[in-house]
């Protein structure tokens, strides 16, 4: 076989550069229509270099190997009734949030990379985007396969694609990706390839997945790490495209800087969900949100932006705010979901005493001072048979679409309010980051599909909340939603572990 003699560099050159042809009878601009409207200037695509130099043959070979390993573990998990061996049924609610909130983003990433993989004039970039697009399709498929097993034993999994398009909190991740995909190809790469994949997804796929392992969920950790093994390649592509744009033309620098500022803030706001998954939804704790944030954001981003300083790129604006919020974020997020637990397709609960002690230890400056008394009051209400649910719909941020539960860090019990007026109308925001993003491109964000406003406009089913939640969202009311305590999930879990003799279990299984 002749290609055995080729080294990696030659193979890669043959795959990319030398397979490109001259466009002789059509204009370049006609073929690559979206390459210039964002203002990014590319003078020489041949300078593009894929550091992994991945060729198609080794791509298929190693992806196939990853799949084989992955499905062997899924099978073992199902055969061993792995769902019964996770630490606690509360944990599974993090997986519900993952399936409804994150897996559909993998599908959006697949769409997005397939699209930009057509738009770039450079063949190296096109090949890398196409491979990534295939990876992302693999991610959504393997995630659905992994979680379909949980769907047999727990509530809240059954309508995930429908819910992703409609449910209030899922509009947060959905609109994030819609925003990226409706931008031009270079902005998409900065948004997803760089900001999300390089800087932020580590926070979801590394400490959280390690936490899944620590909670006995081998299926999730395996799809997580299997996806993440592609992610290392995606991260590298994200960094490569940034360096490439910066090297091509100095006029690109301010555009790229603005995109970095915007997308790191947008992505960080989406990760609010992950903060609470880490601190509240993993019964066995690996590390706190704050600790993960310090390793995978503060430390990693500092090295990265020091490296990019040679191009004139600075630490993203609002990074300081994100860092200040690290001692509050997960608690504020959990409070939002506890408030609106009747409108969520997963269960919420108050932490146990032991868990509160862990939170006090991990958050010595904030937990006892601001959050513990609130939680103790809520627990008291629950014990009195009056579990607290917020009776009124929340105010949402126009940009990130999250309920306005964030506070001013100089005054951490005061809601952070920001407002802009545009074309005779008021718009409200949770932060300077979200306000600045709107102010820069208001014609885009006046279109935000804000779930609360849509309900009040009558676009989400009937007039009663029951119609909205039950029919429009397809939440199975009294089953998927409300507190974990008293849920059918809890009842089944208890039946598996305490109430049913082992003999009966065996009989049932056979």
């Amino acid at each position, binding site marked *: 076989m002749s290609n055995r003699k080729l080294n990696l560099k030659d193979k890669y050159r043959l795959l990319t550069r030398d397979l490109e042809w001259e466009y002789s009878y059509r204009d370049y601009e006609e073929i690559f229509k979206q390459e210039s409207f964002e203002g990014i200037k590319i003078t020489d695509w041949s300078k593009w270099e894929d550091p*992994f*130099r991945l060729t198609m043959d080794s791509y298929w070979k190693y992806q196939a190997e990853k799949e084989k390993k992955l499905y062997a573990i899924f099978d073992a998990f199902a055969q061993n009734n792995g769902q019964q061996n996770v630490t606690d049924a509360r944990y599974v609610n993090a997986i519900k949030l993952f399936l409804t909130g994150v897996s559909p983003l993998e599908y959006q990433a697949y769409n997005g990379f397939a699209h930009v993989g057509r738009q770039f004039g450079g063949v190296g970039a096109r090949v890398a985007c196409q491979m990534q697009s295939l990876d992302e399709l693999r991610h959504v498929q393997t995630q659905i396969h992994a979680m379909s097993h949980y769907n047999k034993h727990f509530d809240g999994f059954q309508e995930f694609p429908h819910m992703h398009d409609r449910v209030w909190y899922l509009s947060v991740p959905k609109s994030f990706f819609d925003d990226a995909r409706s931008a031009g190809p270079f902005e998409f790469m900065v948004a997803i390839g760089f900001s999300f994949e390089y800087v932020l997804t580590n926070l979801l796929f590394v400490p959280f997945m390690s936490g899944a392992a*620590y909670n006995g969920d081998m299926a999730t950790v395996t799809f997580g790490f299997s996806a*993440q093994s592609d992610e290392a390649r995606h991260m590298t592509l994200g960094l490569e495209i940034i360096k490439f744009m910066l090297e091509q033309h100095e006029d690109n620098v301010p555009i790229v800087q603005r995109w970095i500022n915007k997308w790191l803030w947008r992505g960080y706001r989406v990760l609010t969900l992950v903060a609470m998954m880490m601190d509240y939804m993993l019964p066995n704790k690996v590390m706190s949100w704050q600790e993960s944030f310090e390793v995978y954001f503060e430390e990693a981003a500092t090295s990265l932006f020091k490296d990019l300083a040679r191009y004139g790129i600075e630490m993203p604006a609002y990074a300081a705010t994100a860092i200040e919020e690290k001692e509050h974020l997960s608690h504020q997020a959990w409070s939002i979901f506890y408030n609106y637990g009747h409108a969520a397709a997963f269960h919420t609960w108050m932490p146990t005493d032991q868990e509160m002690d862990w939170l006090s230890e991990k958050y010595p400056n904030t937990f006892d001072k601001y959050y513990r008394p609130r939680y103790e009051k809520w627990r008291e209400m629950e014990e009195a048979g009056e579990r607290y649910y917020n009776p009124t719909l929340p105010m949402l941020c126009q940009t990130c679409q999250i309920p306005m539960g964030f506070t001013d860090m100089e005054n951490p019990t005061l809601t952070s309010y920001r407002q802009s007026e545009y074309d005779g109308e008021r718009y409200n925001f949770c932060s300077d980051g979200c306000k600045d993003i709107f102010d820069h491109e208001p014609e885009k964000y006046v279109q935000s599909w804000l779930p609360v406003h849509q309900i009040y406009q009558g676009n989400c089913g009937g007039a009663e909340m029951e119609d909205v939640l039950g029919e429009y969202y397809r939440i199975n009311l009294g089953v998927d939603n409300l507190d974990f305590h008293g849920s059918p999930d809890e009842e089944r879990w208890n039946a598996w572990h305490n109430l049913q003799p082992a003999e009966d279990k065996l009989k049932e299984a056979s």
Partner: protein
Amino acid sequence: MSKVYIALQDNEESHYIVEAIEEDNPDSTVIYQPAMIRIENEGRMVIKRETVEDKMGRDWEIPALHVNLITLGGNVDEDDDELTLTWND
């Protein structure tokens, strides 16, 4: 100095890779977490095909690293013999 890092799934094959990394990067730090192993080093890290093959006692090629890779931080350069991670300060 900035830290480059790599994280691998905690499995049999990775143990050999980690051994090789430790040998080729004597100042690196290895951190074991549930289901994963994170290795960090100041400024630069190299993974050499030869050293890994030596530890495994069989042929191994650099792209096979992807099967067990979870994440990495640093500028990547890969050829037939090694993969390096670097940060410019």
